[in-house]
Structures are given as structure tokens and as C-alpha cells.
């Protein structure tokens, strides 16, 4: 969405005459071109002495605009894409897989909300281990609370691969653990930096055809958003929406599953509800609410929102030590 002045270097037909013609009508950028009435602009251009050049210039700008939007897809294209690319990733947890009909779907953003110490980090670590081991995929773990425990990942991997409590071979363990990358971020702008770098890296890998990233986990996104949400002005909310739209874009274009965690706050009647407010509710594709039975390893999860499963269903599962 550049200004016409900058486009002049690329397209010399947009010369200063055309620019002043547009400036008289309040058009300085390509964006203004889209907002103003095109018909009246064309009619005005035809009445000018150099109408042919102006018409060519207008067509040039329209051509630039046409090149900017995504290609149209029809239902068949989308179905093919879903079958070929958007598979489900098992989470390693039977109850959760049953509830989600297979697991986390690639191309979708899943939110897991729960009160403190309800098992969100444990679930994230278990999912990371399962995806790294079973699906042979890369996992990007963005950690905001220094809760990433490599020891716990090693324990989970031992459980998954050798249920007879044998130890995994060190070489295999090293290979699997090398595909889990952990970043520590402590504010939302660092998270944007990490996601931008990731986007460039994925674009580069896509060209070479060896894309093996499968899952992005952000634990927890609410601790990055809470410091900026609610102050005067809507900057905080804009950043939150912007972050989610970037995550959804990465999920869809590069076939990744995204898992984010959220905390809960007190709601009506003392029942905990997910934090981050009303505008957040529409952003993730799938929303889950987690709770833990006091002092035990049994967890309860209920489905708050899903694009294709009825909400309100619940399931129990156990995560062993």
C-alpha cells in the first residue's frame, strides 16, 4: 500500500502530472485509490488534455492492486488442501484425543485455559514430546514463564517410546529432543520478532520443500497480553488481535498446529472463566477449559468452542509422573 510517489520509480507512467491530478482529488496512496470513487476519477481523467496517459496510469495502479490479493480458492481446492495437508496431531493423551476426535488439527489455533497449577504446562510438554516423537516433526516452544523443563520432556519421551520402563537409546533421544526448540520471550514485541523470524525460515524451507515443522506452543500467551490490555486506548487489544492473526496465518499457510495457553479469572458466582476478555473469545479456533482434581493426577477438560464438534463435551485423563 505505497504512496504514488514511491510507485513512480517502478512505473514511470505515474509521473508528477498524474500525481498532482490525483492530489487535487485527495488521492496520495494506493489505499486512497481504493476508497475514492473510481467512476468519477475516470470521468475526470477523460476530460483532461492528456487523458490517454492518465487512463494508462489508472490501469497501471489497478493492475498493481490486483496482484496483491490471495488467489481465489473454490470448495474443491479447500477440500484437497484439508485432506492432503491439514491432518490431526495426536497429543499423547487419550482423553484429549478422544474429545478432539484425533488431536490438534494442523491449520487451527487451539487455546487451553485453566486456573493455576491445573496442568496446562504439563499438557504442553506432553504434546511437544508426542509430536516430536510420533510425528517426527519440529516443535517451536515459546516459553514466557521459565517453565520449559527438558528433564520432564525426557521423562515423557521415555514413557511414550518404551512403556516397559526401559531407557531410550541416547542417540534416538538426542535426535528427537533436537527437534524441539525453546525460546524464552518476556514481552509481546519479542514474540513478534520470533514469529517473524520463524515466518522467514518457513518460507525459505517451503521453497526447498523440506518443511517439517508441525507445532507451535506458546505458554502462556496471556502473560504477554495482560500487561498491555485495558489501558487507555485500544493498543493492547490491537496487538492481541494482530498476534492471533499472525498465528492463524502461519498455521494456515505452513500447515502448523498452534497451541496457546491462557489463565482464568473469577467469573460470576466464583466459577473461573478464561482471561483476556470478550474480544479474545472469538480469536482461537478451538477453546478448551482444563481443571485438576485436588492433589491428584486426574484432569478434566471441557470443550468451549470448536468449528466442527458440539461444545459442552468433557473428558477426563491422567498424566503420569
Amino acid at each position, binding site marked *: 500500500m505505497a504512496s504514488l510517489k514511491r510507485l513512480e520509480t517502478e512505473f514511470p507512467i505515474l509521473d508528477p502530472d498524474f500525481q498532482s491530478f490525483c492530489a487535487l482529488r485527495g488521492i496520495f496512496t494506493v489505499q486512497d485509490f481504493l476508497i475514492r470513487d473510481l467512476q468519477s476519477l475516470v470521468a475526470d481523467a477523460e476530460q483532461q488534455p492528456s487523458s490517454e496517459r492518465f487512463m494508462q496510469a489508472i490501469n497501471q495502479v489497478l493492475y498493481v492492486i490486483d496482484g496483491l490479493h490471495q488467489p481465489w480458492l473454490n470448495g474443491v481446492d479447500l477440500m484437497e488442501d484439508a485432506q492432503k495437508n491439514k491432518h490431526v496431531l495426536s497429543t499423547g493423551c487419550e482423553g484429549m484425543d478422544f474429545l478432539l476426535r484425533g488431536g490438534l488439527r494442523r491449520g487451527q489455533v487451539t487455546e487451553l485455559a485453566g486456573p493455576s497449577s491445573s496442568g496446562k504446562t504439563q499438557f504442553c510438554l506432553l504434546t511437544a514430546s508426542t509430536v516430536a516423537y510420533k510425528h517426527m516433526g519440529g516443535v517451536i516452544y515459546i516459553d514466557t514463564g521459565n517453565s520449559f523443563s*527438558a*528433564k520432564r520432556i525426557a521423562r515423557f519421551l521415555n514413557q511414550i517410546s518404551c512403556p516397559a520402563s526401559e531407557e531410550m537409546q541416547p542417540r534416538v533421544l538426542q535426535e528427537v*529432543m*533436537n527437534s*524441539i526448540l*525453546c525460546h524464552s520471550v518476556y514481552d509481546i514485541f519479542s514474540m513478534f520478532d520470533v514469529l517473524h523470524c520463524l515466518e522467514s525460515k518457513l518460507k525459505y*524451507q517451503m521453497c526447498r520443500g523440506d518443511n517439517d515443522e508441525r507445532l507451535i506452543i506458546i505458554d502462556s500467551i496471556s502473560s504477554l497480553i495482560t500487561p498491555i490490555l485495558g489501558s487507555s486506548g485500544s493498543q493492547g487489544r490491537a496487538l492481541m488481535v494482530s498476534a492471533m492473526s499472525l498465528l492463524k496465518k502461519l498455521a494456515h499457510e505452513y500447515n502448523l498446529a498452534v497451541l496457546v495457553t491462557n*489463565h482464568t479469572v473469577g467469573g460470576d458466582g466464583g466459577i473461573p472463566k478464561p482471561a483476556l476478555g470478550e474480544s479474545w473469545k472469538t480469536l482461537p479456533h478451538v477453546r478448551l477449559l482444563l481443571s485438576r482434581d485436588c492433589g491428584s493426577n486426574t484432569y478434566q477438560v471441557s470443550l468451549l468452542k470448536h468449528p466442527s464438534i458440539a461444545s459442552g463435551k468433557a473428558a477426563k485423563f491422567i498424566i503420569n509422573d
Partner: protein
Amino acid sequence: MEVGRLPISAALKGKLVSAGYTSLSLLSSLSPSHLARDLNISENEALDILKHAPHDGRIDTSGGHHIISGAQTAWDMLHEEELLTRITTSSVDIDNILGGGISCREVTEIGGVPGIGKTQLGIQLAVNVQLPVHCGGLGGKAIYIDTEGSFMVERVLQIAEACWDDMLANNAISQNVHAGQVGMQPKDFLENILYFRVCSYTEQIALINYLDKFISEHRDVKIVVVDSITFHFRQDFEDMALRTRLLSGMALKLMKLAKKFCLAVVLLNQVTTKYAEGSFQLTLALGDSWSHACTNRIILYWNGNERYAYIDKSPSLRSASAPYAVTARGIRNNVSNCKRIKLM
């Protein structure tokens, strides 16, 4: 629009958008004077904005492993975790449930009712961190941030003397005395505790912001104890939304300190009552949003006449509780005669 993601003020963002710079790629090949003229701002401000424009050389493509700068693989972190030493609490039972003691690079919150021994534990950790590594410490200094005024220097001296006696006794038994190792006197323990007193929440936030620079200059600080983190936020706060924002911002800064300088951060917290499931329960102060601000949480409570510590939240430790006692020598294992004195 991508320009919305830059860490600059809203007014500057508005100017960028109205001048037509709506995406970051348009900024990447621009000179500061050009931008300053376009936006009608000073050249310094233009330089600030361009600092955040994306640089394309950030991907490290060496060795076939496309690692984004700043990332670590889980395998490397596993080895790092094995090498991390922990700070002993002087009570073997508590050390056992903690996997050796308070760990570095993590924020540990310790909460309990008044009189259970939170400040005692904080002081014990500030002394223990100075012990050499083979005695359970890290050989470093401690920062003690006091918000309530409960730091008693005489008590610190008493605990330091007991610690020094124990160290001498251990060295004599194990014949491990290095020449001149026993040079540490109890008074030296006091010298290595850097003490700050804060009297309002603004002072507290300013201090935590300042700690980054302070610790870069005092690299041998290995533990930061804040006693208590919640005191100034509990009374007279009219704007609860502001409180939530300030607390979560403070939590992130402490996490960053812990990770960046590889030190332990210990936060002491008070309790309050909460109405849940039909009854009043004791819970840590500052509510649900704050309860996510720590990596580990230990709750100290009374069980009959004995003190217990319970691990409430941890990414890698099992939930367990252990008894302990507060003695004249500091925090120690529970033996049957160190119990609560009942006031008749």
C-alpha cells in the same frame, strides 16, 4: 497492519500510517532523514523507528540447522539443567522434595500464614547462597528487597553464625579443609547481602526495573529475595485493572532477570481467604492472575503443631510435602521439640 506491531507510541504509529507506511517492508530501505521529512518528526525519532525495521540477516543457516537466533534445543537444555546447582534450604527434607534445593533460572513463590517462617526461610536462603558449591550454596551474593520492614539484622547474624559453625563441623569431619577455605567469618555473610527497602509500589516497580542494570554490574549476585511481593499492592489500590497490568509486567521482568543472569528469584507472599466451592479457603494473595507469575510455588502451612512445606506448582517436581522447623539456628529438619508454642 504490521506497523501496529512496532514498540513505538500510538501517535507515531498514526503518523506512519497516514504517510502511507503501512507495512514493515516499506521501512527497510529508507534513510532516517527521508523518513523524518515525510513524517515531520525529528531525525532522532526517525532513527528510533528504523531501528525496529526488520533486518533480513537474522537467520543462522549454518550447519544445516536453521536455528532462529536465541533458541535452544531441548537436548542442550537437558544438559544445562543437569549442570545447574541448587541452593540448599538447610532442611534436608525440604531439599529432597525440591530436588536438591531452590533452583536458578526460575521464579519460586513461597506463601503462608503469618508466623509460619517465610521471612526466616528468605533469610536462610540469603545466607546459604553464599556458601561454597560443595556445601550447597552458589558462592554468590544475595539481594534482599524488604517491603514490610521485617528484616532483622541480629537474626541474620545468628543464622550466619550457625551456618558457619555447621560448615566448620562438616569440614572437620570430612577432612576436606582446603588451606584458607575457612577464611569466611560470620560477618562476611552480612557483607554479601545487598539490602533494599521499598516503601511504596512505585518504588518497588522502579527497583525491579533498575535491577537489570544493577545486576549487570554486580555479576556475582545469585539470588533475589523479595519479602513480600504483595504488601504494597494489597491496600489502597483503586484501579484493579492497573494493578493487574503492573503485576503481570513485574512478573515478566523478574522472569527475564532469572533467565538472563541465571539466578534464583524467591518471592514471599501472604495469604487471604477466598470463597470457593461453598466455603472459605486460604489462598495466596493477589488473585488468579498473579498465581501464574511464578515457575514454582511452595505453600507453608500448619499441620497440627508442626510446620509443613507443600509443593503446589512445579513443571518438573512431584507434589509432595515435607516437615521443617524454625530453630535458633535457622531453618532445620523437624525434630519433635520444635513445635508451635500454644499461648495459654
